[in-house]
């Protein structure tokens, strides 16, 4: 405790100096218009909806500042120690375990203590609602990912990253595979079958295509997360404590996911394009891959990166069924000066009506389960993906999802496994050696 106070005192001195320096030089601004600074990433804050809100509330100015997911996480940690300008912060679900544990929830406002004002009453958000009151709109296990272990509600879920398979029907046709999405889904009831289909596809490629590294799936390594998330336990097993019990050495699901992925890697079905790299972006346009394991939020990315492939894509079920990847929470940092305005914005932005609009333009699949039997969602089709009933397909997948306990260092462990599979993919190491290195790398995380 003493150490903590020394450190706080030290930070306090620096903050005091910075603040007094600021007070001396910057004249105080008029308090009237409220500026909401949102630290976000990707397409979490949709510009269209942001404009709509500003039209409703001319007195509020919204400034989203984008970072990548991991740097944003670091920024959030730093700002929690020193204070910062953000009023709303987005964090991804793999990081939720980190924020829910220990005294870290103190970094965020407990949303149970907030109440909506009547400012959005006309737009469908009644006054006087706390987080406890709006909870019923959301998918229960998804809501829990924003609830800290001390029971305070630190985040409201924006989307569910339901996972399905996006595939190129034209390339399937060329390889003599069925193209209809129902028939394609039937091709792969299991991951083994998926790999077999992949081998069949790759065997039809011309030598020139093989030389340019074309493959069945963009990155066979992405199978790991998909299989992993079809289980119920990842690296932490809930055991009644906040932290959970670490089971990364013993959980059979991990070995299964690892072995399935290694099998896919050895079968050579992957184009070995790391997701979100420049080669991946270009390859998407050039037909370097026939399938991508696509969470709902990735559909928009595909549309933007590969506009020329419009109408050539379609969407089929994930092998085994029910996959999850990603998803985001929006939270209000405790240092925010505009908590009320931020809360009013959040409750409006994440209300079912708005989530439906976000889904239609950006493909983020709603976390509000009240929409799941809504015709507007179920009947939604996407022209880019050959008019696939995107709403229906993803709803079916999301309803199959089982909640998974996300532990404190989830994200870090995930990326350590990802690096391990990368080593196998590039044939730098054998599967056994790489696996052993992954385990020892994770061991290191928990030392010091």
């Amino acid at each position, binding site marked *: 405790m003493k*150490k*903590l106070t020394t*450190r706080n005192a*030290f930070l306090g001195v*620096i903050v005091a*100096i910075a603040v007094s320096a600021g007070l001396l030089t910057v004249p105080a601004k008029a308090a009237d218009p409220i500026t909401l600074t949102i630290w976000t990433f990707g397409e979490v804050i949709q510009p269209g909806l942001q404009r709509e809100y500003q039209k409703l509330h001319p007195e509020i100015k919204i400034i989203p500042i984008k970072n990548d997911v*991991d740097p944003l996480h*670091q920024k959030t*940690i*730093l700002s*929690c*120690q020193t204070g910062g300008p953000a009023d709303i912060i987005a964090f991804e679900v793999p990081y939720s375990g980190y924020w829910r544990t*220990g*005294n*870290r929830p103190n*970094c965020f406002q407990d949303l149970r203590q907030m109440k909506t004002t009547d400012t959005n009453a006309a737009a469908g958000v009644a006054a006087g609602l706390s987080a406890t009151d709006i909870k019923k709109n959301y998918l229960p296990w998804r809501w829990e990912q924003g609830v800290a272990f001390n029971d305070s509600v630190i985040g409201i879920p924006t989307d569910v990253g339901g996972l399905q398979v996006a595939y190129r029907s034209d390339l399937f046709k060329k390889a003599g595979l069925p193209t209809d999405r129902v028939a394609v889904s039937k091709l792969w009831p299991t991951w083994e079958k998926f790999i077999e289909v992949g081998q069949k596809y790759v065997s039809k490629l011309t030598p020139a295509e093989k030389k*340019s*590294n074309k493959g069945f799936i963009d990155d066979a390594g992405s199978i790991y997360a998909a299989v992993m998330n079809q289980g119920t336990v990842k690296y932490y097993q809930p055991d009644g404590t906040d932290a959970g019990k670490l089971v990364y050495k013993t959980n059979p699901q991990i070995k299964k996911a690892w072995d399935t992925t290694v099998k896919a890697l050895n079968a050579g079905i992957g184009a*070995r*394009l790391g997701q979100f790299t*420049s*080669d991946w972006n*270009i*390859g998407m346009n*050039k037909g*370097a891959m026939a399938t991508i394991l696509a969470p709902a939020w990735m559909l928009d990315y595909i549309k933007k990166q590969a506009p020329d492939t419009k109408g050539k894509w379609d969407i089929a079920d994930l092998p085994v069924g029910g996959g999850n990847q990603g998803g985001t929470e929006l939270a209000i940092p405790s240092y925010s000066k505009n908590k009320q305005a931020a809360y009013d914005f959040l409750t409006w932005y994440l209300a079912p009506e708005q989530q439906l609009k976000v889904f239609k333009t950006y493909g983020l699949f709603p976390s509000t389960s009240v929409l799941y039997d809504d015709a507007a969602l179920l009947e939604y089709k996407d022209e880019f993906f050959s008019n696939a009933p995107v709403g229906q397909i993803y709803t079916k997948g999301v309803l199959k999802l089982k909640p998974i306990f996300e532990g404190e260092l989830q994200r*870090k462990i995930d*990326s350590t496994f990802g*690096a*391990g599979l*990368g*080593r196998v993919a*590039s044939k*730098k*190491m054998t599967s056994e050696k790489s696996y052993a290195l992954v385990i020892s790398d994770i061991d*290191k*995380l928990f*030392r*010091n």
Partner: protein
Amino acid sequence: MTLIKDSKGRSKAPLTPWKQKSKKEKKPLPGVASLNGRWGYPAIAPFFMIFLIFGVAPVAYSIYISFFKWDPLGTSEFNGLNNFIFLLQDSDFWLAIRNTFSIWALSTFPQMLIAISLAAILRNRRLKGKSFWRTILLVPNITSVIAITIVFQQLFGRDYGLINGIIGLIPGVDHIDFIEGIIPSHIQIATMITWRWVGYNTLIFLASMLAIPDELYESASVDGATKWQQFKYVTLPSLKNTITFVLIVGTIGGLQVFAEPQQLAADGGSTKQFLTLTLFLYNQAFLNNKYGYAAAIGIAITVIVLIISAINFVITRRISGEGGR
């Protein structure tokens, strides 16, 4: 050491006239110097205050926390020397040292060769548009590292990169993976560093080349020396001190390589093949939130810098001792 000084007698000669001069002048110096004593300390205070707050304090603080298991948003406990013991056992640390020096060697030596050759070309008195060439050399240096990295990453792309496009034209040669390979990834990073610093070093070499008296070249050509011989026996020996300088600056920069590998892959690659020391430190502090351990790495880097400085010092002494000016 004294032996060398005595035999050359160089250090004495230039000092003597200055000493005599200062003995004669006893009245106070004009201008700012007259403020000495009364206003001197307040005048230099701002620098030392800032240095104290942003220089000394963080260093002292990191030495302090290097003895702790220090989580920024969790609990912190005293850890004794465990951070240092663990560091020496951490294979990543040794990998980082290997990578740092490999990248340093791959960037410094080719860079030196290119810079000296470019400077030799620019030294040509008949060259047209001198200022233009000299200015343009500095452009890569003022470009943002991130921008450079993004462009080079596209050039070095495994499947669609320009460089692999050219390599692929050679029959029987496969594309090179400039991320996964150890040496290829080092080459990619070293190329970015070279691109950024070669112009800057060229200008330094050029400046010192222009300071070489023309008489030396004239007498060399009277003796029948070819251009190459002139370069080898006149230009290069005169550049000895500059080369040392560039080497030292390059070493300091080499130990700080961070943004380029970080942009390629934040974790330093799947086998940590381009994890450098500073990236290792940064990742422990800001990805793994181990501030104490990161502070220990910082101290280790300081020790490495001290060792290298000592080596540099010895080499510099030897070079400037041996060679005449």
